[in-house]
């Protein structure tokens, strides 16, 4: 036996071939778009129903309507109560999940293949024919109001809420899906019924099905469940919502939510930055991977591995159809808060040209994105969600195949140029949820001016 040569790391072989899922498109007579993917590894089917009903649809004063509407759907249908619906899902071992995003809401069900028809039909029942009863609404709203109270104790939730607000102001992207107490308390069941009637339209929804059946078989699953879905609205262009207002320099550069004696500061730093459909998207991905998107990124190596200030720091884009924020998030030891902020500013600045990516950084960032790409297509659920993302952003069916070549083509100068245009230290808003008494005096040296002090439920 020849044992390992420990003088150097083994070489990596040529990248293995991988065939990305082929997407078939179908349109039902009622206008519903169906996309199917044959995924034959396991007897499991995942179905995603994506509806134009994200939290951006909440009008001013009705924040939380999209989310509570989504929540109300499995509260009963036909002769089934909320309990019966839950029971019916459980009896086939189905996993039902609701994701209320900024733009769309995705309802996902995963079942064993032999229960796929039953699962799809249950899903259609609740999405198309919810009972929407007063008593259920009353209970669900109360739970959400109490949940809002609880979120005030959770630093990440407090930061999330305040940061969205700092980014988008009173634009419809500026609130969490759960909304705020005043708006939620003022909502009525009629609002939910109207929202459901208006937003749940077959001509403005997409169903994605992935599982061990032929494209026709998968389409039949969707058709069997959703062909009876009747619409009242004409198809609408799924363009950017009103979110594309002019970006003006935010007046606030530093904001604090006080949390007495907190052992860590929950930190957010960022600003509105880029569109998901930008031609610069591959450069932005590489730039983010290099700067803060993964463990080996500059910022995590600095804050965690060199200084021990945090358990981990990451940057990223919170993509949506409109302009998305670029932001850093981390929980930082209270005593190191100002130092960590200064380090992050230095890194934001450096990647814009003062310290351009090295060859080795470029190779690492690109390879981690491209060589790891096939890993995301292992389960029916992953595949169905990936395809629904294409539908959300209007990306082509060839997207998966093109991903690796597009990312591979990015050069160091593309990264610097993207950083120059999309990361702006001068426009960066810094938010600290932490011990203001301890942190406050140290923030002055950052030169960000006096902090705006916000309440925990801003």
């Amino acid at each position: 036996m020849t044992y390992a040569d420990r003088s150097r790391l083994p070489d990596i072989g040529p990248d293995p071939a991988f065939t990305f899922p082929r997407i078939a498109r179908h349109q039902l007579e009622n206008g519903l778009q169906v996309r199917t993917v044959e995924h034959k590894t396991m007897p499991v089917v995942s179905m995603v129903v994506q509806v134009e009903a994200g939290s951006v649809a909440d009008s001013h004063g009705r924040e939380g309507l999209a989310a509570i509407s989504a929540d109300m759907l499995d509260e009963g249908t036909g002769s089934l109560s909320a309990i019966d619906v839950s029971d019916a899902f459980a009896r086939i071992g189905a996993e039902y999940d609701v994701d209320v995003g900024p733009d769309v809401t995705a309802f996902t069900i995963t079942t064993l293949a032999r229960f796929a028809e039953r699962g799809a039909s249950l899903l259609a029942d609740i999405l198309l024919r919810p009972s929407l009863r007063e008593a259920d609404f009353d209970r669900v709203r109360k739970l959400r109001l109490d949940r809002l109270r609880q979120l005030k104790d959770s630093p990440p939730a407090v930061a999330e809420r305040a940061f969205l607000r700092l980014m988008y102001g009173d634009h419809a992207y500026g609130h969490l899906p759960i909304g705020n107490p005043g708006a939620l308390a003022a909502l009525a069941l009629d609002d939910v019924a109207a929202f459901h009637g208006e937003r749940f339209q077959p001509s403005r929804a997409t169903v994605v099905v992935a599982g061990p059946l032929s494209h026709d078989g998968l389409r039949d699953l969707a058709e069997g469940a959703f062909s009876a879905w009747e619409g009242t609205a004409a198809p609408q262009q799924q363009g950017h919502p009103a979110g594309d207002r002019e970006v003006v320099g935010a007046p606030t550069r530093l904001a604090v939510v006080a949390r007495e004696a907190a052992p860590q500061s929950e930190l957010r730093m960022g600003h509105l930055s880029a569109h998901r459909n930008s031609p610069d998207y591959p450069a932005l991905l590489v730039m983010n991977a290099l700067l803060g998107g993964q463990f080996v990124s500059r910022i995590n190596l600095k804050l965690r591995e060199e200084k021990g200030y945090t358990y981990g720091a990451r940057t990223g884009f919170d993509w949506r159809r409109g302009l998305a924020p670029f932001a850093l998030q981390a929980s930082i030891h209270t005593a190191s808060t100002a130092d960590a902020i200064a380090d992050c500013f230095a890194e934001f600045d450096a990647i814009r040209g003062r310290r351009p990516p090295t060859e080795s950084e470029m190779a690492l960032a690109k390879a981690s994105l491209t060589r790891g790409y096939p890993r995301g297509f292992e389960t029916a659920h992953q595949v169905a969600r990936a395809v629904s993302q294409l539908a959300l952003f209007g990306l082509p069916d060839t997207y998966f195949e093109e991903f690796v070549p597009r990312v591979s083509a990015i050069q160091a100068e593309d990264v610097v140029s993207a950083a120059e245009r999309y990361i702006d230290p001068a426009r960066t808003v810094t938010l600290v949820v932490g011990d203001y008494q301890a942190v406050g005096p140290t923030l002055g040296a950052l030169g960000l001016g006096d902090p705006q002090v916000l309440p925990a439920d801003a």
Partner: protein
Amino acid sequence: MENASLPYAKRTLSNGLDVIVHEDHHVPIVAVNVWYHVGSKNERPGRTGFAHLFEHLMFEGSAHHNTGYFPPIQRAGGLLNGSTNTDRTNYWEVVPTSAVDLALWMESDRMGYLLPAVTPERFETQRDVVLNERRQNYENRPYGFALMALVAALFHEQHPYNWPTIGSADDLRAMRLEDVQAFFRTYYHPSNASLTLAGDIDTERGFELAERYFGNLPGGPRPVRVEAAAAVTSERRLLLEDRVEMPRLYLAWLSPASYADGDAEMDLLGDLLANGKTSRLYRSLVYERRVALDVSAYQSSRELAGFFLLVATAAPGTSLTELETLIGIELQALIESGPTESEMERAQAQVEAHFIYRLQTVGGFGGKSDQLNAYNIMRGDPGFFQHDLARYRDATIESVTDTARRVLGFDRRVMLSVVPRGQRHLALPGAEPVSVS
């Protein structure tokens, strides 16, 4: 049931390392997964948190790759991580098929040659990182201290489940670099470990590569098994003040260890008590009476013992005493009459489905490679998947009822009230304050 199997081949190298290979060629990736049979149960009072801090050091470099472990694996397009619990520490990579040599080289280098790379600077930095992990996940999180208070009450001071795996902050600060060496020599060697390769790899090639990278590492004596007994012989009422809006009640009982008689039954009980709207407690407390905001119940089974935990957050206007009474009524009914046939069918259908769902991924926490190592380390049999499923299929109304009666005694449980600061009167009557930090 369709396809519910997890085939494998196993060999043991001459140094004692168990090697398991599972083929799945659907995606060109290979999961490399190593379990060491050591966790916080192998620590002693005053040195708690060590097993986990040690895990962090395993990513900082080894003798022949004396720098971070993340860059080479991420450059290869791989993912990697590790975790520590009371009983074991696991490490894994999921890499493209082209990088399986790299992952094995690195796993074997830190198994055989970690110590020369552990410097005082790395040790200090990772101590700070772990202290920050503790702040983030426990100290600065609502109800973050509850589990620490519970295990401290369920298990006596010398029992190795008495302390949390993250350890006490004071102990973490007191740790010395010298402790690392003894720990490594005792627990980190081939005969205390299990290696699984799962994914796009031929079985014979898997064994060949395991031999090439791990075959010449010296074995070592198997560590002495930890033995400890725990007993709760009365009802204890505890109270913790926290930065929370809503009071929350925790009820905890000692329960069967992993895979022991009654363990699967307690799992099923957790489901039928609190999994989904249709479960007994959700339906009664949240849906019908609206006295709770949430309720959960689960069997946390470990190698030496388990505990069953029931948690409910009071809705405004409801006292923890009322909540406790209502939970008591449901538990009493279950103990007296057992689950219905329909409840059993539902719970078992969910278990059957989840045994298949968990066969969908080769790597990562809970993937097929992790399951094979779990069965091998805890049962000495990677093929335990079918037996594991059978434990749930074989459970009956009688076995669930008997187990509930045996475990859920009202006179031998720990009841913890977590209340908003300064509002001790919201706790159950007679609750004694505990200090956790």
